[in-house]
């Protein structure tokens, strides 16, 4: 964990407000810029006096706005999932993509798409929850095998191996059922396929998943201090963990079903948030939602420009941002001094 700086609640609130303002600003920029740039006043009129005959209005209403909202929500969901994971397991390397949870969700999506080509997007989302659940079960199963508890680093390595295996199976199925295009999209992590129905999925999943996360915040703070401490304070750790896992499954599953495997957001945002906000998850969880949203909206913007006029999968951008951070964490926590 990074050194935490203590701030008064006042200062934390101000930081959150500033981050929120930056988020709104970057969403507006994201709506305005793209393969064709649309001036801000057109954006304004597209929202408040929509005219179906104007092409740019349609682009904004049907493509740009749902995409920007999806980016923000996916970023927020992944970051909150990562925060819960890191808090509950006291493992600085825990995150949906490192532990293979996103790959499990993606594999489940591929299986459903191969078996039921006409499946609805709601069905896919449910499949995504289930797949994330199977991956979590696998990780817990492996963790329980190691004598005397598994170390954080080993858990991360096992997660990477599970992720690799699940992704390989996805690739096999995609080759066999000619789903390379859809699957390639999910495995790379892209936001270009988002629409209002993605926003709907994210919205309804968020209504269930986020309140659970906020509700658990206090208990996660206690858990992050250690299992013994939690038991001494009379906390039912098993129930808290079960609820935490449910929240992770819903948030990660929804994010993957919309945007595919977007790595590293769930890893780095909780660290940055802890650095700024301290160790109290009552602050960490809401703030990581805002920071995660901001990070993904900005990454999405970069992904549209780096190879213009083609789009780069946003997962590649978050990897480039996340890898240096991951290396820093690996050096810090990678098994002692030698």
């Amino acid at each position, binding site marked *: 964990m990074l050194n935490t700086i203590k701030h008064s609640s006042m200062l934390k609130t101000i930081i959150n407000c500033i981050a929120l303002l930056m988020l709104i600003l970057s969403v507006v920029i994201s709506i305005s810029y793209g393969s064709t740039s649309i001036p801000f006043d057109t954006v304004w009129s597209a929202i408040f006096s929509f005219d179906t005959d104007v092409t740019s209005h349609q682009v904004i209403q049907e493509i740009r706005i749902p995409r920007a909202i999806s980016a923000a929500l996916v970023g927020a969901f992944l970051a909150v999932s990562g925060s819960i994971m890191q808090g509950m397991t006291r493992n600085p390397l825990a995150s949906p993509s490192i532990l293979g949870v996103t790959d499990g969700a993606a594999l489940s999506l591929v299986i459903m798409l191969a078996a039921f080509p006409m499946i609805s997007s709601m069905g896919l989302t449910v499949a995504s929850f289930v797949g994330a659940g199977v991956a979590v079960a696998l990780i817990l199963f492996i963790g329980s095998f190691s004598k005397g508890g598994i170390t954080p680093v080993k858990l991360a390595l096992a997660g990477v191996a599970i992720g690799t295996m699940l992704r390989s199976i996805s690739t096999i199925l995609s080759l066999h059922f000619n789903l390379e295009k859809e699957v390639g999209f999910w495995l*790379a992590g892209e936001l270009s396929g988002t629409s209002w129905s993605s926003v709907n999925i994210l919205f309804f999943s968020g209504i269930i998943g986020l309140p659970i996360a906020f509700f658990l915040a206090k208990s996660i703070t206690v858990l992050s201090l250690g299992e013994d401490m939690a038991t001494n304070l009379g906390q039912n750790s098993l129930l808290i963990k079960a609820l935490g896992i449910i929240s992770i499954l819903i948030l990660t599953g929804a994010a993957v079903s919309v945007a595919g495997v977007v790595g590293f957001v769930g890893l780095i945002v909780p660290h940055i948030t802890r650095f700024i906000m301290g160790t109290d998850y009552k602050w960490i969880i809401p703030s990581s939602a805002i920071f995660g949203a901001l990070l993904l909206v900005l990454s999405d913007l970069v992904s549209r420009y780096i190879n213009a006029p083609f789009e780069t999968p946003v997962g590649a951008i978050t990897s480039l941002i996340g*890898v240096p951070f991951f290396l820093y964490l690996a050096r810090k926590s990678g*098994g002692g001094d030698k």
Partner: protein
Amino acid sequence: MSGNSNSKKRKFFGISFILIALIIIMIFISLRTGVISISFQEVIETIFQQGSDRNKLVLFEFRLPGIILAILIGIGLAVSGAILQGITQNELADPGIMGINTGAGLAVVLYLFLSREGFVVSSIWMMPVAAMVGALFAAFLIYILAWKKGVSPIRLILVGIGINAGFAAFITIFQLKMDPQDFRQVAVWLSGDIWNANWNTVLAFLPWIVILIPLVLRKVNALNVLTLGDDLASGLGVNVERDRQILLLLAVALAGASVSAGGAIAFLGLIVPHIARKLIGPLHQYIIPLSMFIGALLIITADTVGKVILAPTEIPVGIVVSVISAPYFIYLLLKAT
């Protein structure tokens, strides 16, 4: 003592004989497997110059170069893994997991991109060289970043995974700058497919194996000493760092050349040395040759399984290898202290 080493030698030759026999059997099975079905009898007739022209074309121009390439790649990656595990005293070392393969892949993608744009000359002979430069760069980066008063095994792997993800992201970005035909080819190739199997690829790759493997075999004693640990090795008067660097260079060169010929096949270099050690014990004069045979056998088997299991879909050999090997990696991980 000498009786013991003699019985070891006998055991080594026995195992080698069985492995070579298995490889030959697999070559025959692999030759007759594919979209166009050719019976054993036809395979044998064709080998003795009596087959139809069609069979000759399929067997000698398509399947045989693929099989030979697979064998060479299996040898290269397995020996590379055996060296890496020896010099880092790390059971989990593998050129694929550690990002060395991806580094080589990135260099090849960059090279293809630059040659398409006309900045450099396009030549199949240059691909292994580009791949080796990339592999070397990756190895250097991993070593520097994992160094913290020494290199711990787990940290080395963790840093390698990070480097791997970073290079993979760069590959994604560069792929998009290519035209769609190249893009697809590169994507399949990176998942470990022997797509470009023709005699030219074999010839471009063969010299590297022929030169590098004997150099490795000359260094097996140094490898044995290094496996004992730095303190003991320098106590025995071995120049530890120098030998380690030479061996690392050989391992990286083998991995790079293999990647240029067959794409990034992860986990092969991980499990093969383990099987070899289980069979013959810790001496590298036996481990290295056995790793060559096991690597070759495993890769032809994986390639054939990939062709058969969901036929007519052909699954890249790298994908088959990772599905089989990832559980083994987790097992080793849980066992390691």
